[in-house]
């Protein structure tokens, strides 16, 4: 029974995206809320089913695995889907009442693009066919370009730059798929795995691997290729960056894991890419760099984006250590980091709702005016720093443990360094938030109740994931 309805995770946002432009604004808004709730319940239902049974495959069109396209449902995929759908639901709860103010006539198309973005993220997580992955990648990319361009003004330049770099990345990925296809003749990950298992891998496989990695690193925003990321998320409307920033980079990181380790085994990758520690060193350098510049930012959004870029490098580094423990840490960090960044962005959105800006100079004394919101933001920052019992502590702990086991001490040290930098940044921030006088004359209330609810949910989820991190790690390994 869950096998049959599992495809609905993709189908429900899809039908939503198709119907929203045909309906009136109000109906479309609440329908999108219903859609996000349905996806969440469905994901939880399938996950609870899969805890007792085996992972399963869904063949679209009824054709067998290599002839048609197949989707793969296993525990980690579904956990990630649950996280994504809860982000969708929380974003909708947060923003729905004032979407029409932000977007006016463009509201239904915005909702449609948002639904297609989420559908493509679910598809990226679930698909087991590397060409289908490229098509989903392009759907998510196109919807991101359009959503970012809603910011107008500078967002057009940011979106165009993102478009060019993102298309180059996707095309490099496609070229890598081409090399694999020419050599082995199949597009399904499991078929490829069975063919590749017994073969000695040569130069063309190495080339395809490097191309796929380059393409996905570009999409992830890893160090030399991160140039599109800060501008794109800074100039896009807040309602867009709230859900896009936590998700799109993590999904691309997950794709790296899925494609590389789904087809090849760890030892094969180590043989093919003897210099894989290069990526760990790259990640270390970028963590130091982003840690250092995060102190000098004067805007909450930019600070959070620096942290986001550093977190992406955590993921890259812990992936390329290529040991079982570091890969479990990688998976755990994907989940926890999406939640943390989302919590941070939701707090910024709440602050901007009343304050219209998140520059430090405009934030004086907000802590006393909006105590709940500011507390939530401080908690999110503490989680990113790595304070127990929140999930940030556990994810950093597992990554550092995995790094030290494999003698990558500098990488572990860089994580501690970035935590330290974030502590310094928070220390600089707290006086501005709490101890200065609030100069602007504005309404004397805090953000509306629904926003408080969303903030509370996101922070509680951080605690929740932290407390249950042990069982989560067991599930993932």
């Amino acid at each position: 029974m869950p096998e049959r309805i599992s495809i609905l995770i993709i189908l429900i946002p899809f039908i939503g995206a198709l119907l929203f432009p045909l309906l009136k604004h109000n109906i479309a808004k609440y329908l999108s809320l219903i859609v996000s709730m349905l996806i969440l319940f469905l994901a939880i239902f399938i996950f609870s089913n899969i805890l007792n049974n085996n992972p399963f495959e869904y063949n679209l069109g009824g054709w067998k695995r290599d002839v048609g396209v197949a989707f793969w449902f296993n525990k980690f995929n579904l956990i990630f889907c649950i996280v994504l759908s809860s982000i969708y639901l929380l974003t909708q709860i947060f923003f729905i009442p004032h979407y029409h103010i932000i977007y006016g006539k463009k509201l239904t198309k915005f909702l449609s693009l948002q639904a297609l973005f989420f559908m493509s993220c679910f598809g990226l997580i679930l698909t087991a066919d590397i060409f289908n992955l490229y098509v989903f990648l392009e759907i998510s990319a196109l919807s991101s370009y359009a959503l970012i361009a809603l910011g107008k003004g500078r967002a057009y330049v940011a979106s165009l730059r993102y478009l060019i770099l993102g298309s180059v990345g996707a095309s490099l990925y496609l070229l890598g798929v081409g090399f694999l296809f020419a050599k082995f003749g199949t597009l399904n990950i499991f078929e490829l795995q069975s063919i590749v298992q017994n073969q000695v891998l040569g130069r063309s496989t190495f080339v395809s691997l490097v191309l796929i990695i380059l393409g996905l690193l570009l999409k992830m925003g890893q160090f030399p290729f991160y140039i599109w990321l800060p501008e794109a998320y800074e100039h896009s409307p807040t309602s867009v960056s709230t859900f896009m920033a936590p998700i799109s980079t993590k999904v691309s990181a997950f794709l790296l894991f899925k494609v590389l380790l789904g087809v090849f085994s760890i030892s094969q990758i180590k043989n093919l890419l003897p210099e894989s520690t290069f990526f760990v060193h790259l990640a270390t350098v970028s963590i130091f760099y982003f840690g250092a510049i995060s102190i000098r930012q004067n805007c909450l959004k930019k600070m959070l984006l620096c942290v986001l870029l550093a977190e992406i490098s955590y993921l890259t580094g812990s992936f390329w250590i290529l040991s079982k423990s570091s890969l479990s840490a990688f998976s755990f960090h994907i989940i926890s980091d999406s939640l943390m960044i989302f919590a941070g962005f939701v707090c910024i959105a709440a602050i901007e709702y009343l304050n219209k800006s998140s520059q430090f100079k405009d934030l004086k004394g907000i802590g006393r005016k909006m105590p709940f919101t500011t507390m939530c933001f401080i908690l999110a920052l503490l989680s990113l720093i790595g304070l127990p019992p929140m999930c940030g502590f556990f994810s950093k702990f597992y990554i550092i443990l995995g790094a030290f086991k494999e003698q990558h001490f500098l990488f572990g040290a860089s994580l501690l360094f970035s935590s330290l930098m974030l502590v310094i940044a928070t220390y600089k921030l707290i006086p501005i938030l709490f101890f200065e006088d609030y100069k602007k004359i504005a309404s004397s209330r805090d953000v509306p109740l629904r926003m408080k609810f969303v903030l509370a949910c996101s922070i509680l989820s951080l605690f929740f994931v932290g407390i249950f991190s042990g069982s989560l790690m067991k599930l993932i390994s």
Partner: protein
Amino acid sequence: MFKVSRLLVILLLLIFGFFLVSGIGELPLFGNPSNPVHKQAGNYYLEHAEIEMESPNVVTAVLADYRAVDTLLETTVVLLAGFAVMLVLFSTGNISKFEEVVNSSYILKISTKLLIPPVQLFALYVLAHGHHSPGGGFQCGVILGSSLILQALVFGVKETLNKYPPKRIINVAIFGVLIFYSIGLICFIQGGNFLDYSQLQSILSTTESHTRSLGILFVEIGVSLTVMSVIYLMYIFLITKGEVNN
């Protein structure tokens, strides 16, 4: 972005090129019929397409049945591009501000009026014969879209906008994807997997291969509607810079 010299860029690109060529040496030889790429799915498609779905054009069979999900997503990409162009470019400006010089001669107008219907008929022929000769949904959509663009070129954008207003045309595009999606949904509701056309057999009550053939035809209709609308929309929005109101 950064000021780099042209030589450095060319050098880096040549290194990248050598890297790619080094991987080529190991690939199977060009044109060899026993390459691994033909072994797995390629030969299966060639052997079974005609039997399973009465479609001698194997490309259409693969596109619209074996890998129908890819086509559905691709049509969604087209629709998404239409939405995106509308979102980015749509402004509240008036079309009367758009300065166009339409001085088509009488001969041009008459011959276009005579030419457009056969072009559209040919497009429908291409759609309907997608099973037997090269053709299918995308080709039909492009030909129909270009017939609309031809109207806009010869008769002027304003007149074409009156006949085909963008707000209605985007609904046609959505409807196209909805057709494709609902065929898959019917298959799903009837008990099979999504886009498994054999489940339509109870509704259409013919042989299974004929059911699949009809399923292919229906989804191609949806695809062509979407492609036609979005190509026309992209032309209109790019030409008028979005000022399409009356």
